[in-house]
């Protein structure tokens, strides 16, 4: 009697353990082996703002998701945006300013997530000899900007603070990497680059250039964008966001290692990383403030005639929260 009960107990426990093992194995196998793998190409802007992507790749964060990621390194979010729209890539990284400008053209794109924010990425540099101490001093000056980006938006705001407009100065448009050449060639008296061009310019031009303290005046975010997404694209976006989520957690806990990864990836100096790193906050979110930011910039672009378009679209339709809601629902704060 006792022996048979012990036997039954033993058999039951062993059976239970086997069932648990099989269930665990099945769930592991299902999540790791039988998950479809999609190949996606992401146009990544060559800036430390794209750190979550580089870290995700370096630590193999995408390996655990449904995507095989290939990077197409581009200079600037606008270029990345263009590649997304032409279908050269599946996803891209763009600033909220680019999104604001492009939303006016009513193009078919969506933003899936914001992954970094900085309040000091775009900088205002003027020639030392021009003695620019206030905004008023910019009147009649030639300023180099990157058209349709945070660079152009920022300078327009600076001017407007003192009642000036872009008509009171001469704006010259350059590609991001060409801004410094315009300055060296005396084509402009001041220019508005973003990092790492701002840092490189100060290193190269040394005392010929003055860096104005504009920290906190311009908040910039970088976002994951794609063409208007169908279910499959949302699924891919979800997997990319999963990888980015692992990466941002890693960055939060491993600051030094993350810096090393970006330095290797973008061939940057330690001095530069130390210069920009405190300004960056790497976190995934999709909230109302992004919509407000994009909307206000779009309205501003229309009001100041920076854009050829005259009507501001409903910005919310450029936000797709489906992917984020599946990964980090508590980081989503937009009207559904």
């Amino acid at each position: 009697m006792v022996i048979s009960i012990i036997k039954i107990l033993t058999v039951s426990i062993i059976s239970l353990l086997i069932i648990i093992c099989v269930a665990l194995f099945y769930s592991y196998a299902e999540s790791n082996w039988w998950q479809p793998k999609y190949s996606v190409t992401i146009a990544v802007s060559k800036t430390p703002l794209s750190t979550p992507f580089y870290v995700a790749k370096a630590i193999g964060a995408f390996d655990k998701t449904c995507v095989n990621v290939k990077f197409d390194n581009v200079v600037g979010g606008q270029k990345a945006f263009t590649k997304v729209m032409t279908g050269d890539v599946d996803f891209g990284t763009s600033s909220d300013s680019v999104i604001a400008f492009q939303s006016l053209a009513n193009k078919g794109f969506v933003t899936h997530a914001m992954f970094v924010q900085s309040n000091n990425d775009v900088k205002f540099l003027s020639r030392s000899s021009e003695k620019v101490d206030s905004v008023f001093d910019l009147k009649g000056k030639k300023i180099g900007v990157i058209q349709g980006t945070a660079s152009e938006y920022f300078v327009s705001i600076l001017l407007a603070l003192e009642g000036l407009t872009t008509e009171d100065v001469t704006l010259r448009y350059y590609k991001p990497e060409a801004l410094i050449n315009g300055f060296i060639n005396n084509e402009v008296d001041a220019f508005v680059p973003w990092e790492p061009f701002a840092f490189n310019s100060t290193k190269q031009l040394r005392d010929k250039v003055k860096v104005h303290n504009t920290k906190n005046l311009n908040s910039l975010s970088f976002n994951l964008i794609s063409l208007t997404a169908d279910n499959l694209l949302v699924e891919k976006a979800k997997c990319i966001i999963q990888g980015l989520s692992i990466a941002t957690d890693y960055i939060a806990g491993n600051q030094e290692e993350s810096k090393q990864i970006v330095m290797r990836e973008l061939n940057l100096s330690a001095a530069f990383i130390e210069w920009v790193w405190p300004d960056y906050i790497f976190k995934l979110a999709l909230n109302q403030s992004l919509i407000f930011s994009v909307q206000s910039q779009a309205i501003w672009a229309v009001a100041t005639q920076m854009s050829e378009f005259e009507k501001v679209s409903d910005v919310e339709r450029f936000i797709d929260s489906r992917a984020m809601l599946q990964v980090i629902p508590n980081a989503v704060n937009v009207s559904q």
Partner: protein
Amino acid sequence: MNVSLSQRIFFFVLSCCLLFILLLASVTWSSYAVETAFKRDNYAKQLTNQTYRLKQLVANDNIYDANYNLEHWHALEVTLTNLLQSSPKLTAQQQTIQMSLQSQNENLKSLFTLINKNKLKNASEVIKVHLKTRLMTQLEAIQSDSLQLSAIAQKDIYDTIQRQAFLIISVSVASIIGLLFGAFSLTYIVRKSLNEVKRAFEKNQSGDFQNIQFSHHSQEFDSIAQAFNTMNKKLSDTTVSLTVMKEVVEDRTKVLEQLSNTDALTKVANRRALFERANMEFSRARRAGTELTLLLLDCDFFKKVNDDFGHLFGDQLLVHICNICSQEIRDVDFLARYGGEEFIIVLPHCDIAGGIETASRIQSSLAKNSLTINNQEIAITLSIGACTLSDRHKHLEQLINDTDQAMYQAKKNGRNRIEVLRSTNLH
């Protein structure tokens, strides 16, 4: 390893205590984790409320108005800043949000300072509206971050409670399984050991003195086994002596019985044995209606032989006669010394003719095998009386008596002959 039952119970109780301590520690840890998460949630909610107040202020008041009272704004902003500086201990993920909150707050302060620097007296209405929107955007960003912080804290609370519930259930299930296993194994060991003791006693009772070999060792039962095995050894030794004694007694009895039934000189059955066997055969023959014949043999001139050649030779002669008789009779026949130089042979299932034939064979054999003394061959003869059981023989003594009469007749008729007591001679 030899573990006592009390040690097993001790380990068992200790394991239960450890599980209980583990449970207690996890409950303490969980309550701490939940409390911390509640503090974080409370912190996030305070931030949300404070941001909401600032939003209300910006939305309702004209911040560009020359008479706008900054004190209210500053009071709320200072509270928000102080709140951000007094954050509870946060996780790495929450720390990132905290950094974002601080950065957004700095942006908010810078923007508000810029707006209030000279009330943007030179700026257009468009930029004023735009900057006010930017201000609201910053506040919205702070509120979103606060809400996310709160959501993470709430998720932590939920996860901690869920984990704790899972742990409590797991530990409880493990304890119940452990308790059941412990109780069953203890019962099993005690029962099996008691059965083994019982079997050992039963074997002991039936004379199979085997040591107890427990299939499960425990100090308590092993001490019982040791005492039992010592007792068993002593019993075994004593009982072996009794057996030997019994065998010896049986052997002696057998020898004594043989001695009491055997004639000391001739080594054939004596008179006592003769009557025992003859009575048995007599009863059997009468009951079964089978034949029974008696021969009574008397050595002729035995007294003279004794006188001439001495008693030793006489004894030798009697032994010789017995040897001859033993050789000539069947296995079922029975030879006994009746007295002096007289012998009786009981012939079961044998009629008178058979009896005469046996008697003749004995006489012939004796004639051929004479004894020699001092190179002198001594011829020995026998006078044999034969009688077969008949209806008139109610007792063995009557049959012996008739046989004896036949033998006297043989003596009377000249010795060395066989006489049969005919029916005519009967009553």
